């Protein structure tokens, strides 16, 4: 029995990955139009580089920014620019978006593969930047920025996050199985870009088939190791994963480069390989469409900009009355008020919960059961943060570490009083940020 690595704290929610874990990734038909937000990443907003009425080709850059922390966006399909306007994105915020009417026929592209072995570190960073690559696990931080650590920080280890610790989601699992070679190639490109000698692929122990597939593909390659991790949420959170795998702790407010580590998601590595070998930018991604409220749960390859409604139609539509439609996983995803938001680079799944699955009762008083404290992977006291936020004492909430919270939701999950800690945390952070500005 192999010893599984892990971190302290966390929770064991029901994983519910059975519905899609064994289903191969499928293509779906194209929607009539795609909506491509100019901001799909952490960092500066892009400006559109096309005009209404322009013809665009799939893969053509349609938005870019001069800022360092940014990632360009590309047309995900060939078609005509129908509008450039504000549209609500998956968070509900109005974001300037390019709406493209999709051409009936889409010429095949990026079939030709070239060898990536000769690319230099500089070239790899350029590839990532030009492809608009961002963290595809959900955080959507521009990848080339992570591949350009400060000169005084030496990165010795690149970790691929193959935990997929969010319940329901299986897209990373499928990619590890279906594209193991490309994943390893992408990891090697990342290692070369930052000059790391060691690569680690961290996989939760509920995906042994993926771990085995990767180990087999690696053969005798000693520079890359597959590390098995305990099945626990949030095993794939950056700091938790680094702690579990290397025993190093990233100090608060610092980046993983502080402890010589770079973490990237499975899909990011695969996309980097694609961009390097074929020149294909990030215009599509694999997402998991699942939950009790969807008729045919599956893993699908979706063009960026596809509206949720189209994806749901392609998965058989709703089963019964939907209660909640969540963009992303159940722990950190965003509940949608309608089905118009588009799939973006950071979308890992669309979760449809049935009417009966979303009623968990009204918030009650905290009884001090302390489960949230035991569950918090950041060793905070979520109940105290809530208490002070309710009273408007944001400085006290700050003293209790609200800024260290990365909103994994473990506290709210375990709470018997049904308190939405994450909502209070966001409130406190917003108030603290507003106070800072004054």
């Amino acid at each position, binding site marked *: 029995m192999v010893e599984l690595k892990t971190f302290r704290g966390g929770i064991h929610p029901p994983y519910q990955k059975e519905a899609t874990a064994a289903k191969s990734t499928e293509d779906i038909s194209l929607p009539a139009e795609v909506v491509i937000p100019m901001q799909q990443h952490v960092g500066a907003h892009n400006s559109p580089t096309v005009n209404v009425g322009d013809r665009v080709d799939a893969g053509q850059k349609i938005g870019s920014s001069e800022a360092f922390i940014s990632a360009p966006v590309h047309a995900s399909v060939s078609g005509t620019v129908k509008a450039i306007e504000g549209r609500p994105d998956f968070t509900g915020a109005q974001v300037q978006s390019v709406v493209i009417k999709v051409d009936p026929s889409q010429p095949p592209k990026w079939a030709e593969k070239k060898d990536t072995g000769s690319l230099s570190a500089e070239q790899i960073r350029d590839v990532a930047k030009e492809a608009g690559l961002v963290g595809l696990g959900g955080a959507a931080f521009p990848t080339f920025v992570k591949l350009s650590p400060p000169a005084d920080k030496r990165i010795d280890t690149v970790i691929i996050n193959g935990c997929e610790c969010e319940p329901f989601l299986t897209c990373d699992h499928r990619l590890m199985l279906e594209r193991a070679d490309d994943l390893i190639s992408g990891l090697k490109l990342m290692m070369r870009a930052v000059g790391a000698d060691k690569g680690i692929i961290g996989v939760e122990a509920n995906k042994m088939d993926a771990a085995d597939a990767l180990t087999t593909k690696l053969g005798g390659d000693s520079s890359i190791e597959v590390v098995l991790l305990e099945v626990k949420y949030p095993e794939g959170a950056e700091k938790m994963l680094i702690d579990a795998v290397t*025993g190093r702790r990233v100090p608060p407010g610092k980046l993983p480069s502080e402890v010589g580590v770079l973490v990237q998601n499975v899909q990011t590595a695969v996309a980097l390989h694609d961009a390097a070998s074929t020149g294909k930018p990030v215009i599509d991604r694999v997402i998991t469409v699942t939950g009790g409220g969807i008729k045919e749960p599956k893993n699908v390859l979706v063009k960026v900009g596809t509206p949720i409604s189209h994806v749901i139609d392609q998965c058989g539509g709703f089963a019964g009355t939907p209660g909640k439609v969540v963009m992303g996983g159940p722990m*950190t*995803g965003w509940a949608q008020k309608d089905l118009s938001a588009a799939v973006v680079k950071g979308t890992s799944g669309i979760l449809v919960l049935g*009417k009966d699955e979303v009623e968990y009762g009204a918030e009650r*008083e905290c009884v001090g*059961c302390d489960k949230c*404290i035991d569950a918090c992977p950041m060793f905070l006291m979520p109940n105290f943060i809530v208490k002070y936020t309710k009273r408007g004492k944001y400085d006290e909430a700050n003293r209790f570490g609200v800024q260290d919270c990365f909103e994994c939701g473990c506290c709210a*999950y375990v709470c018997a009083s*049904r308190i939405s800690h994450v909502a209070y945390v*966001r409130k406190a952070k917003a108030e603290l940020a507003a106070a800072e500005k004054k």
Partner: protein
Amino acid sequence: MIMAREDKPDRDEKLETEELLTIGVSPHIRDTDTTARIMGWVIVALLPITFYSIYIGGLSTLIVIVMSIAGAVATEAVIQRLRHMPVTIDDLSALLTGLLLALTLPPRLPFWMPLVGGAVAIALGKQVFGGLGHNIFNPALVGRAVLFVSWSKYMTTSWLVNPKAAVVNTAAVKSIDAVTRATPLYTMRLVRQGTLSLSPSGYYRPLLFGNPWGCIGEVSALLILVGLAVLLVKRLVDWRIPVYFVVTVMVLSWIIGMDPLFAVLSGSLLFGACFMATDYVTNPMTRWGKVIFAVGCGIITVLLRFYSNLPEGVMFAILFMNGMTPLIDRYMKPRPYGHGRAVSES
């Protein structure tokens, strides 16, 4: 350049469905535990001892239990109504408070006394602080303390040997017969003063299986441990509190020359350590905070037991440490992840 909203096709076609969608902040899945369910399981943990005490004590015990619960639940409902708040007796916490109070009372009391106790527990122990989650002291123990100082004669000297319990325990030492009206702790005080000669080991068996002298909830140490097992298996309480509390009392009793096992089995230590000190609201939040709390309870229990006029000290020990809890929480804040340490401890 900007298009009118009406020009957008397939925008509103799903509206009928969309209007029904629930929104809300993540996470979108929750654990199945609720406050009512947790309280319910604590009540389940108390059922063995409750039923056995009714079997042993009969109607008088049943009346105490029913009256105490009635006083607590009715008071909760009335006060919440008066405060124009939603009535939350369905969370079972008032019922639990009433039951806990009853189990700390003598089996024979005038029927109105537990009623008053239950009402006081909720009114002064809980609602004056703002209700569930806001009280500083364990409500059941507040109720008991008020009865204890108001009608101390009923609460301390009216212990009657329960004939049925004495039958269950034929092994109760014969020499105890002379002082059967006194509780074991009081008897051992007489032993310490030299007025009586008796080995505490004679008490082990009756205290474990059928205690004829104590409060309702002290009728069997064994069944208290069964209740604790339920709490631990269902992960409702932190093991540190009962364990550190009891071990502290054992060690200190042993140091000052008392029989450690007797110290654990007698009086209200086990019941208090398992069911009173573990009350979520009134003990510290963090693991080390709980350890300090439990050790503090143990030290004060022993001090009161052996160096005060009171025969037993568990109630006041827990109430005192309840009062210390906000202070303990203030200083036992866990260090957030990554602060001050770049390498994992594990």
